[in-house]
């Protein structure tokens, strides 16, 4: 090794040591790693990975572990608007559709207490929740919503970038349940209307956490849109197993208040 290399190394070592003693952070190497993490080759944020399902930052959720919306964020209800708290009719297919393995819907299903996997390419991000293997395929090219579609349980999502934030705009919903709050209070079966519109904003807060904000916009029910912030924690420990299968109809023995395990 020649003398100039040795002396440069000695100088560098001295500088580093002095900086450490002075309490200066040396972020060069770390920030290089952080910048490389969660970025696509063309520099966009990359949401590929396994995540904990969205949870409220204050940890609040319903009686179980599924995430539900906190009433304190609701906008005022529109007078004369469609009923938000769906009354029971006595028909189990109406009152407990999930008993019959009907779709969990959005956003309720995406907030289900099961692992989430997101998979991103240049053109799409696919967002999956293991529960009912809910799968949303979101184009990333800023295209408009499709027209002429029949309303669906999960709507028509389209994505675009706003700086480092992925924005997913979803319309085209059929009237269905908003979240699983009825597990906490069976009288409060929260329904959104067919005018339902959601906007999700996903941003990497740090190497392990995605800020996930969802805006609820339902002009038949609420006087204005309202939002709640959640977070999704990266779970690399779930990657090896992957998402497990969930076929609701496989052995569904409890429907409409009757369990048929035994007579």
């Amino acid at each position: 090794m020649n003398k100039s290399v040795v002396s440069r190394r000695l100088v560098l070592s001295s500088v580093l040591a002095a900086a450490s003693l002075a309490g200066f952070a040396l972020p060069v190497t770390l920030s290089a790693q952080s910048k490389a993490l969660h970025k696509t080759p063309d520099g966009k944020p990359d949401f590929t990975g396994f995540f904990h399902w969205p949870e409220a930052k204050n940890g609040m959720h319903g009686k179980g572990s599924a995430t539900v919306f906190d009433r304190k964020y609701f906008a005022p209800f529109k007078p004369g608007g469609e009923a938000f708290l769906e009354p029971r009719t006595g028909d189990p297919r109406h009152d407990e559709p999930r008993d019959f393995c009907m779709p969990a819907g959005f956003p309720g299903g995406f907030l289900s207490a099961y692992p989430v996997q997101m998979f991103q390419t240049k053109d799409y991000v696919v967002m999956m929740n293991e529960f009912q293997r809910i799968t949303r395929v979101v184009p990333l090219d800023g295209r408009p919503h499709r027209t002429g579609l029949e309303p669906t349980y999960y709507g028509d999502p389209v994505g675009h970038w706003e700086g480092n934030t992925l924005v997913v705009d979803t319309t085209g919903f059929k009237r269905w349940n908003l979240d699983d709050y009825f597990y906490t209070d069976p009288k409060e079966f929260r329904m959104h209307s067919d005018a339902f519109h959601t906007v999700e904003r996903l941003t990497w807060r740090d190497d392990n956490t995605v800020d996930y904000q969802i805006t609820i916009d339902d002009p038949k029910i609420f006087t204005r849109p309202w939002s709640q912030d959640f977070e999704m924690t990266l779970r690399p420990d779930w990657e090896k197993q992957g998402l497990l299968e969930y076929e609701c109809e496989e052995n569904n023995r409890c429907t409409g208040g009757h369990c048929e395990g035994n007579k």
Partner: protein
Amino acid sequence: MKKLHSLGLFCAGLMIGSLPLLAHHSFTAEFDDQQPVKLTGTVTKVEWQNPHIWFYVDVKGDDGKVTNWGFSGGAPGQLFRRGITKASIQVGMQVNVEGFRSKDGSHNANGARVTFPDGRQVFTAGSEDRVPEKK
């Protein structure tokens, strides 16, 4: 009936509160939290399938009559991440099962807590399922 010695008890599973749990159904629609059950018997059948596992237990009553009870638990995937697999509950095993009876009065219940003769316990509840208080 084998006595379960409290000193020998330890939790093989994780506590309910820290677990990701979700059932596709509503506990309150199907089970009655005013009718707790605690039954001991021999496992006769296991259905380790979605949306809820089921396991069946022959329970001998005080009159000597044997009744088969069905117990519903969480989804296999959730239990798997809790370290509970179909090897955990097998035909022929002696179990004590705690939960709440089905509202329709049938011999079914949610099977929330399973205790084995050696004191091991597994929490097999699905989400939103009530778990009887430990006594």
